């Protein structure tokens, strides 16, 4: 079971409170976790990754276990602690706009 923490605006958009728990088939990567997240919440495609390129939107970052995974390959294995559910994958909105 993979745990995902979404930014507040996306939780509101998805009408979901708290931490998402996802069953992710196959290898747990950023891509497979986001695929599972978007399958669970059909309003989310396009909000985290661009529709056409499937690239991370510029003002969002991915963190886990104190590490910034934003520039890792979307197909790289996630840390064991995320795969085991010990640590969540954090989707963070950049502090910007000031």
């Amino acid at each position, binding site marked *: 079971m993979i745990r995902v923490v979404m*930014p507040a*605006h*996306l939780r*509101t*958009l998805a009408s979901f409170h708290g931490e998402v728990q996802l069953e992710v088939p196959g290898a747990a990567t950023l891509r497979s976790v986001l695929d599972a997240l978007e399958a669970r919440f059909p*309003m989310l*495609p*396009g*909000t*985290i990754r*661009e*529709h*056409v390129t499937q690239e991370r*939107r510029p*003002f*969002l970052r991915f963190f886990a276990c104190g590490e910034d995974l934003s520039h890792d390959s979307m197909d790289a294995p996630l840390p064991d602690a995320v795969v085991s559910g010990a640590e969540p994958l954090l989707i963070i*909105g*950049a502090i*910007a*706009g000031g």
Partner: protein
Amino acid sequence: MSGVRVLVGTRKGAFVLSSDGKREKWDISGPHFAGWEIYHVKGSPADPNRLYASQCSGWFGQMIQRSNDGGKTWEPVGNKFIYDGVPGTHQWYDGKPHPWEFKRVWHVEPSLTDPDTVYAGIEDAALFRSKDGGQNWEELSGLRKHGSGPRWQPGAGGMCLHSIIQDPKNPGRLFIAISAAGAFRTDDGGETWQPINKGLKSLYIPDPEAEVGHCVHHLAMHQARPGVLFMQKHWDVMRSDNGGDLWREVSGNLPTDFGFVIDVHAHDPETIYVVPIKSDSEHYPPDGKLRVYRSQTGGNEWEALTRGLPQSDCYVNVLRDAMAVDSMDSCGVYFGTTGGQVYASADAGDNWKPIVRDLPAVLSVEVQTLA
């Protein structure tokens, strides 16, 4: 009892302002989609409870929201705006080719007859249509591909398609406008398009009378007289009596002919409204006086409407989609400002008062007249 519903899009959410036919007391609901930019909210003429909203954010991109109960509850629908085919390039600010990139939806325009059909005007400029209530969107790419597309260039606010007008007497005819490409018309439901910019003179572009390249800020039309169009251009207020084939200037005695909004009285097609703004580098009213100007002669002769509006130290702007009229017996006129005020007049502009004073900057105002 009949009433009105004012749909307000702001930099930080949407608001729904409701009143009875007297338009004296208002209920304010919102913010809906708090924290998101709401470029536009508009109701279906065929089903006033069906609303569409364009919700966007620099962080999370574009959403389209739909309501089936007049804005009490909302559901996100499709947000996939994919250009048809290989998008190609338009001109960037420096004149170099730049790839077409989707940025946001500026304007949603529900069909006059079908609540599930809705048009969307986007940046970078293109026209999209959904026939299933906003779930799926297809580009009417004949517009972007009609030939001049590679020469289109963004205005300072982005290359946005901001005006979409349907001809109620001719379902195949649509008018659209793009900043800064100009106005275009289709007579076959969006398959083919032609620029309709003859008569426009824009002294700030290399060829002031070019086929395209004019910074049109907004278009307006009276439903009973679809051949007559009004335009607030970057500078100049313009009028066409032949569906855009030829324009003539009707700025007349306006204190400045720069501005963004233009609209037409609900019952008198010769009565039009603008809000003059000082200049393109000073986006506020001349002399710090917020004045709506009304012409009852279809242009050229204008009177200042000031009663109830601030006449000193006012430096707000009124953006291109932020004026609307209701169709009550005594026509109501509404506009919103970048200072967060929404002003209303229940007597065609003679007297004004704010419905609300302290919203986030207002991006758009639409009105529904409810039976």
